[in-house]
Structures are given as structure tokens and as C-alpha cells.
């Protein structure tokens, strides 16, 4: 594989950039693989990469219905954080933060990881107390957390509304300075390129039509490009999890919902890091191009549409305007939607299933992007070793019936309620 560097950039400039190697090949599927990963998004490609790198399993195919990186890894608001309260979620995502810090070097692909911090704003004394508790829990797990008072928040985001007239005055906030953003497409492409170079077949425009299961064991998948035999199959299909589960006669603790995001026209740097509004569901950051990247509530009803409705965007931006009045002067550049695999406690599932050789990676709700590296890392371990790693030991499918829920936000089973 051709290494990307300033030297290769200069060298290729002499040939008008016409002679770059393709970043990944476009192979026709073989008849059999050791492992087939369904879903060529961030998690699927990361899983294939870590299978090859950490476990030396290279007879792997990633099959994708559309094109790689066209689903949620290309639709999210790129936020990376590990500000979780529960041990299982905190340990899992903090391990992921370590992977993020070295990802550009490891993949030889600039994923533009930019740890500029995240601030969760508080608008009442009670909320400050809750954040103090969460911050302390984070620090016990070795995650950086800083409780900010009103003046400290004002120094960091002076353009927020600190006047006396606001309905939800800012009392302070909880900051994770090591959180940040990354170039989301770059993450998918970087993993794809490295996985491909180690022998993984990335097969696009290949839809799964069914599964071959015999005697409780997975034998292969039936696809639009023919039958592909596999010793092991991993599902990384986020919003399509319920559709594939139906083909397997499985019912899962997951509902599929729609989430929208939007960006404004680009403006000069005004906001450093990520800010979340504490009195409504709204989060915002500024991209390297200068666009304000914003998101908030789910549309709130089961959906596979990948496109949203205007009332939700209006509702989300009402919260945005309450926090940052300057947004009213900006034009909206575009809005889009993605479909979310909402688990019943808001935490993910990375587990084996009752079918031997079939592994499940789902339930990411609207927070899958930040976990892309650690999800791939632990899922690869789970598939290769046929057992859970201690990092995903609590992210099981049977935690619902056993009562060991990871209900981080205390929302109960209706995690889609706004």
C-alpha cells in the first residue's frame, strides 16, 4: 500500500495526481470467508481492521448494501466523548478515547481528531448537583472532568446568552476537556483502506437477503451477489438491525428511529469545542470549514425514512436560539436524517447470540460515532475469540431480562421520548 505523506503528496503533484493508487479495491465476493461482517459503516470497517490487525484473521469480507460510509458514519455530528457515569460505559468509551488519540497515525489517514472539549450546560442547582455527581464518577474512572461555574462558562462561550431575561439562565456546566470532534468520513475511509491493504474484501452494493442457519449454527449469508459461506458472521448494521433480525426470526430490545442534524452556512471561528444545552435537547459545534453543526431530538416515532420532518428541526433550533441568539442571523445550509437503533436502556449491545457463529453489534442509539474504534476493537475480539472482552462484558443482550440495565440517562425503556 502506498503510504500517505508529504513526500508522496509532492511526488504525485508532478503527475497531476493522476497516479494515486485506489484506496481500496472493488472485489467480487469469494464463495467462502472465515468472517463476514455485514455493514460497511464505521463499526463494520473498524471490526474488519481489528480482526486483521489484532487477531490476524484476514479472510474477511465486509458487505455493504449501499456504499461504505454512506450511513450513520457519514450522517452524525462527529462528537467524540467519554463523559459517562456508569462504569461499563465509562471504561468502554475511555478505552476508545485512547484509540482515537492515535488513530490518524495508526491508519496513516488524517481523521482530524480535534480534542477541543465538550461542555454540558446546567440551568439549575439540581442540574449542577447531578453534573457534580457525574463528573466525580468520571474522575473515579480516570476520565478528565471539570465542573465549571457561570463565570468560567462565560469565558469559554461568551457568545451564549448570559443576560438576565433568559428563561433558562446558565448556572454552570460539566466539561470534558479531552472530548472533541473528528472528520467522520475520514474514519470510515481510513479503516477501509487499511483493512483492504491487509486482505479484507470490501464488497459494496451487496444486500443481504437471508441467512443460512443449520442446526443452530450460521453457515453463510444469501446476498444480491450470491451465496457467501462464512464460519462466522458479525452484524454491524445500526438502523437496519431490526430488518436483519426479522430474517433471523429474532426479536431484539431495539426500536428504529429517525434523528436529524443540520449545518449552517460557514462563518469565521466563533465556537471552540462542543456545547450541549441543558434545558432542551440541542448540541452544537463548529466544523473546520466554519459551519455550525447542530442536532437534537429524535423525530420521535418509528422510522426507516432517513429523512426528517420540519417540526423537529424547528423545535431543536428553538432551543439553539435560546442558547445562542446569534444563530438567528445564519442561513441553514442543509438538513439530513439517519436511522438509529434505539436500545431499550440507551446503551449498546456487543454480544454473541443464540446462533453459533453469529455476533451482534447494535443498540448505539444516537451515539455510535464516538465509539467507532472501541466498538470495532471489542467486536473483533468477541468474534475472533468467541467470547466477550471485559470491556464489553456488560454490553450483553440478556442484560434486559436479567435486570442489569445500563440506563445512563434514566429514561426507562422509551429512550426515544423527547
Amino acid at each position, binding site marked *: 500500500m502506498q503510504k500517505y505523506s508529504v513526500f508522496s503528496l509532492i511526488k504525485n503533484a508532478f503527475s497531476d495526481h493522476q497516479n494515486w493508487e485506489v484506496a481500496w479495491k472493488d472485489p467480487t465476493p469469494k464463495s467462502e470467508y472465515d468472517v463476514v461482517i455485514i455493514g460497511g459503516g464505521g463499526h463494520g470497517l473498524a471490526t474488519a481492521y481489528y480482526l486483521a490487525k489484532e487477531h490476524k484473521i484476514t479472510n474477511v469480507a465486509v458487505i455493504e448494501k449501499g456504499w461504505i460510509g454512506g450511513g450513520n458514519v457519514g450522517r452524525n455530528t462527529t462528537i467524540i466523548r467519554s463523559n459517562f457515569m456508569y462504569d461499563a460505559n465509562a471504561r468502554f468509551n475511555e478505552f476508545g478515547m485512547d484509540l482515537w488519540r492515535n488513530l490518524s497515525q495508526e491508519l496513516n489517514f488524517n481523521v482530524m481528531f480535534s480534542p477541543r472539549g465538550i461542555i454540558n450546560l446546567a440551568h439549575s442547582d439540581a442540574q449542577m448537583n447531578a453534573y457534580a455527581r457525574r463528573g466525580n464518577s468520571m474522575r473515579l474512572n480516570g476520565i478528565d472532568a471539570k465542573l465549571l461555574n457561570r463565570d468560567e462558562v462565560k469565558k469559554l462561550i461568551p457568545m451564549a446568552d448570559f443576560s438576565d431575561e433568559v428563561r433558562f439562565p446558565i448556572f454552570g456546566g460539566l466539561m470534558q476537556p479531552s472530548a472533541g470532534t473528528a472528520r467522520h468520513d475520514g474514519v470510515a475511509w481510513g479503516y477501509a483502506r487499511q483493512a483492504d491493504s491487509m486482505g479484507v474484501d470490501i464488497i459494496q452494493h451487496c444486500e443481504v437477503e437471508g441467512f443460512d442457519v443449520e442446526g443452530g449454527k450460521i453457515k453463510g449469508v444469501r446476498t444480491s451477489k450470491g451465496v457467501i459461506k462464512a464460519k462466522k458472521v458479525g452484524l454491524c448494521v445500526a438502523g437496519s438491525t431490526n430488518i436483519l433480525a426479522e430474517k433471523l426470526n429474532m426479536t431484539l430490545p431495539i*426500536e428504529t428511529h429517525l434523528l436529524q442534524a443540520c449545518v449552517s452556512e460557514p462563518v469565521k471561528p466563533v465556537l471552540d469545542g462542543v456545547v450541549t444545552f441543558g434545558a432542551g435537547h440541542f448540541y452544537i459545534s463548529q466544523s473546520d470549514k466554519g459551519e455550525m453543526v447542530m442536532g437534537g431530538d429524535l423525530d420521535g416515532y*418509528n*422510522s426507516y425514512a432517513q429523512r426528517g420532518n420540519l*417540526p423537529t428541526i424547528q423545535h431543536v433550533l428553538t432551543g439553539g436560539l435560546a442558547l445562542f441568539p446569534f444563530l438567528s442571523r445564519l442561513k441553514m445550509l442543509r438538513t439530513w436524517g439517519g436511522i438509529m437503533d434505539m436500545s431499550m436502556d440507551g446503551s449498546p449491545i456487543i454480544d454473541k447470540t443464540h446462533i453459533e457463529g453469529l455476533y451482534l453489534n447494535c443498540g448505539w442509539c444516537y451515539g455510535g460515532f464516538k465509539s467507532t474504534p472501541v466498538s470495532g476493537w471489542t467486536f473483533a475480539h468477541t468474534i475472533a475469540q468467541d467470547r466477550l472482552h471485559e470491556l464489553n462484558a456488560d454490553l450483553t443482550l440478556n442484560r*434486559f*431480562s436479567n435486570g442489569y440495565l445500563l440506563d445512563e440517562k434514566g429514561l426507562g*425503556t422509551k429512550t426515544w421520548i423527547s
Partner: protein
Amino acid sequence: MLHINCPFCGLRAQKEFAYGGDATVKRPEINREVSKEEWDNFVYMRKSPRGKHIELWHHISGCRQWFKVQRDTATHEIFKTAKMSEEIV
């Protein structure tokens, strides 16, 4: 914006309604032994189909009645609405 035909008030804008989830989930009968699996199915397990879906909506800014809606989860087309006592087949 969805336009939902409330069985009591007629066609109204989506903003007047709140969503209540899958309407086909049945609570296990009480006054008998209920297995762990039955509770599990009732509380957590969802089909969440792509296509026709029967679901609960609440006319929260209107008559405040709960009712059933049959809607396509891929196109958002609404086929039928019915009172809670009625079945959608």
C-alpha cells in the same frame, strides 16, 4: 409534517400529537404466574418493522385521547386510525 386523522377530532397537524410506541404489544394477564420471558417480551422486545406499523398516538394538545394509527415506517404514509377499542387489521 404528518397529518393525523384523530378518530375524535378529525385531521390535525402532527404538532398536536405525542407518540406512544408499538400498539401491538400486550401486557401479560395478571392474577397468574407470568414467566420472565413474557415480561421480557412485553417490556423490552420490539419488532420495529420496516413498513406497516400499528402504533399509539396521544392527541395531547387536542382531545387528549389515545388512539391507534397504522403508518408506514419507511414512507410515513398513514393508512388508518382507530379508537383504542377498535382493531386495525
